[in-house]
């Protein structure tokens, strides 16, 4: 265990943990494995009353697993947890709740059709026996909302009618109704705009002022400096840094998150400047503003045969740029050209007709018809081309599928196999096969390497490279910086819906991407 001395927080004037005071929550040697694959290895963590404990780490570092164990949603494979000196092990979230450990997740756990008061007191409704007291519920709800400074939320409002920031306030208020002693906030800022952040900070300070220990998960390092007392960084399931916030710099946090300077075994397949077929039109995005993102307009170009990565944190607008180009989200202003043509991106259908296809993030739901065959899925987008008089030609659909199976080396038992039986990587290849069957001019890839094993990853990287080589412009978005870097070394870093930096060539490193996406540049 690394030792740190808890410092009193200048931001919140509460009685901070003194030297030697026992931690409120103490985790020792926590490990967890899923199907034999370790997600957490021997993690120690101490939370103190009245302190904000920032938990940092890249996706897959083990943060979520750790807080799930803390809050009873998962059980540790080994290790002990003590709450106020008592050994505890939570079999379910309700047991953790009963002990005062509350997790506030990114996807809010509120019922949109019920009122604020009902949501706050669900499961612990005031009243007698089988009856609840609605008056008491309203009064108590009012009190709690006031404590947190949410004076303009009416307890009688239906939650679904509140904006996302207010819903989050309700969610945190809900933690307070549970007599929380430990509140875990899972990326609370991901859904908030910059103005709403101040409200969130104020609320977190009120929580700690009341002696609550707060675990604060975020990717934004500015926030850590603003709000945290202690910083823990996780990587590959291990705790790699645990210090008082005043003792660590942003650079130290970033290098702890990244771990090593060079994560990739090989440089990206597609380097800027490598010559390739460029007879296709260039995509140019001019002065486009995303709805709800008040910032600088987007301006960028992608040449035919080029692969461009877009990186940013959750909520930065990285996926929305793809959605916009795919016609799923009409732009507020600006125009998008492909060569000389001005694109009409009002609907997905028009985007597809103009040669733009999207490989969606959630392939099982949006990219594939799981219980249909490899053939059906592969030819789904080109049915009109392989049909005659409204009848699908079986031989040409088999031919097209065989061609794709060979070209992308998709591993299947037979072309009639249902795609749900394929591995993640092969499923992804089928989606790509369907998309490139239409000979797109612009291919949009959202999380193309998610849930795909290492071997298939490098194959997909090769495939995308070949597609680009044939003159298709490619844009790739991923929450895993490593995945973007495997595909390209021209990366647009987005933050709050704006491109904050273009990283090209040697500049395109994990550290640089992290730095520009997680630290506000002034």
């Amino acid at each position: 265990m690394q030792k740190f001395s808890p410092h009193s927080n200048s931001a919140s004037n509460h009685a901070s943990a003194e030297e030697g005071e026992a931690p409120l929550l103490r985790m020792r040697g926590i490990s967890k494995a899923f199907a034999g694959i370790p997600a957490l290895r021997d993690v120690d963590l101490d939370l103190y009353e009245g302190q904000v404990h920032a938990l940092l780490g890249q996706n897959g570092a083990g943060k979520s697993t750790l807080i799930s164990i803390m809050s009873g949603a998962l059980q540790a494979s080994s290790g002990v947890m003590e709450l106020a000196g008592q050994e505890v092990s939570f079999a379910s979230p309700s047991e953790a709740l009963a002990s005062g450990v509350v997790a506030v997740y990114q996807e809010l756990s509120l019922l949109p059709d019920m009122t604020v008061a009902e949501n706050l007191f669900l499961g612990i409704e005031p009243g007698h026996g089988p009856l609840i007291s609605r008056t008491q519920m309203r009064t108590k709800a009012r009190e709690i909302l006031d404590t947190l400074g949410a004076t303009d939320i009416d307890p009688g409002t239906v939650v679904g009618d509140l904006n996302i920031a207010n819903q989050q306030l309700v969610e945190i208020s809900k933690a307070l109704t549970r007599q929380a002693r430990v509140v875990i906030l899972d990326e609370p800022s991901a859904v908030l705009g910059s103005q709403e952040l101040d409200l969130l900070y104020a609320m977190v300070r009120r929580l700690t002022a009341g002696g609550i220990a707060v675990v604060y998960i975020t990717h934004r390092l500015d926030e850590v400096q603003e709000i945290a007392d202690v910083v823990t960084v996780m990587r590959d399931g291990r705790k790699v840094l645990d210090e008082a916030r005043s003792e660590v710099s942003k650079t130290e946090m970033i290098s702890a998150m990244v771990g090593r300077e060079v994560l990739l075994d090989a440089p990206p397949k597609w380097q800027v400047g490598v010559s390739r077929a460029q007879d296709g039109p260039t995509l140019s995005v001019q002065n486009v503003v995303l709805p709800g993102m008040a910032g600088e307009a987007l301006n960028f170009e992608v040449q035919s045969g080029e692969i461009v990565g877009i990186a940013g944190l959750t909520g930065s607008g990285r996926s929305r740029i793809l959605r916009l180009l795919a016609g799923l989200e009409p732009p507020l202003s600006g125009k998008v050209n492909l060569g000389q043509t001005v694109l009409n991106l009002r609907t997905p259908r028009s985007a597809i007709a103009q040669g733009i296809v999207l490989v969606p993030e959630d392939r099982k739901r949006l990219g594939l018809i799981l219980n249909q065959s490899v053939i059906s899925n592969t030819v789904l987008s080109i049915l009109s081309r392989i049909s005659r008089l409204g009848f699908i030609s079986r031989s040409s659909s088999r031919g097209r599928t065989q061609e794709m199976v060979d070209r992308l080396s998709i591993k299947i038992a037979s072309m009639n196999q249902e795609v749900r039986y394929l591995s993640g990587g092969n499923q992804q290849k089928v989606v790509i096969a369907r998309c490139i069957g239409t000979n797109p001019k612009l291919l949009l890839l959202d999380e193309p390497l998610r849930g795909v094993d290492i071997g298939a990853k490098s194959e997909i990287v090769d495939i995308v490279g070949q597609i680009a080589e044939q003159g298709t412009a490619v844009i790739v978005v991923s929450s895993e910086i490593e995945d973007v870097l495997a595909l390209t070394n021209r990366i647009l870093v987005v933050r709050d819906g704006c491109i904050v930096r273009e990283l090209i060539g040697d500049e395109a490193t994990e550290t640089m991407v992290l730095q520009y996406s997680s630290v506000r540049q002034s």
Partner: protein
Amino acid sequence: MSSIRNRFSNLFTSGQAVWLIVAGLAVVSIFLSDTFLTERNIPNLLGQTVPLIIITVGLFIAIIAGQIDLSVAALVKLTAVLVSGIGDGDMGKFLAAVALAYAIGLTVGLINSLLVVVFKVPSFIATLGMFAVLEGLVLAYTVKGVGSVPTPIVDFFYGRIGPLPYSVIALAVVGAIVFAWFHFSRLAMRMYAVGGDPEVARRSGVNSGPVITWSLVICSLFAVTAGIAQVSRAGVGAPTTGEGLELAAITAVIIGGASLMGGRGKLIGAIGGAVLLTLIDNSLNMIGVSQYSQGLFRGGIIVIAIALFVSKRGART
């Protein structure tokens, strides 16, 4: 345009829209038919609504909790033949048979929830199976009308104060209790939560098992009550009693603005739906639409009513 639409869908989800249609259809019927607004028809119409309203209230409770119960009509049927067959005109035996019917209802509700809660069978499948079992029991017991209901009971169902049948007054009292229950009971609030999102309910410390069990048991008990009401109006129980009531009740709940996915809806709307369905049949009769084309009108009115008030359901679920 969109705001008008929004207001319409708010009317719909709050369960008020269906009552507007009821009022509109009643006015149309008064103008088109001489026999609609008569001392014979109105009490008859009100009496007709009673069994459907009872079964709809029960089903509404199951649907709010995120379940569906397809076995209700079969349970109505079983109740009707047992109460009539065992009772056979004798008050003592009749009451014993009623007690038996409730015991069966309780068992049916418990078995349904055992399948759903413990064995994780979707309620659609579990209650579909239960429906087949109960139908089989009915046919094993009798294939034709059997026994009779004691006269005082039948008289009660046809007795009235002014235009209001006693049964409607009794229903109003029960209805008021159910409304209060929905507003003040812990269980009812948790039903909305479990039906809305079981995972959220779980994270909030609500155990969904007991909530689902209660909802299915209450639903079955309401179905038994509906069966008693139905057979008491008819005077004799037959294996055709209550045929198709489950679909009528589901329709009533949906046109009352509730979500079939659970967690959303108002009781007043579901009751309005049941009233509307009975009113449509009655009006079509009174206006003189032939039996054969009634289905066309019934279906048409229901589809138009729902289309008019397209809910914002899609936006939230």
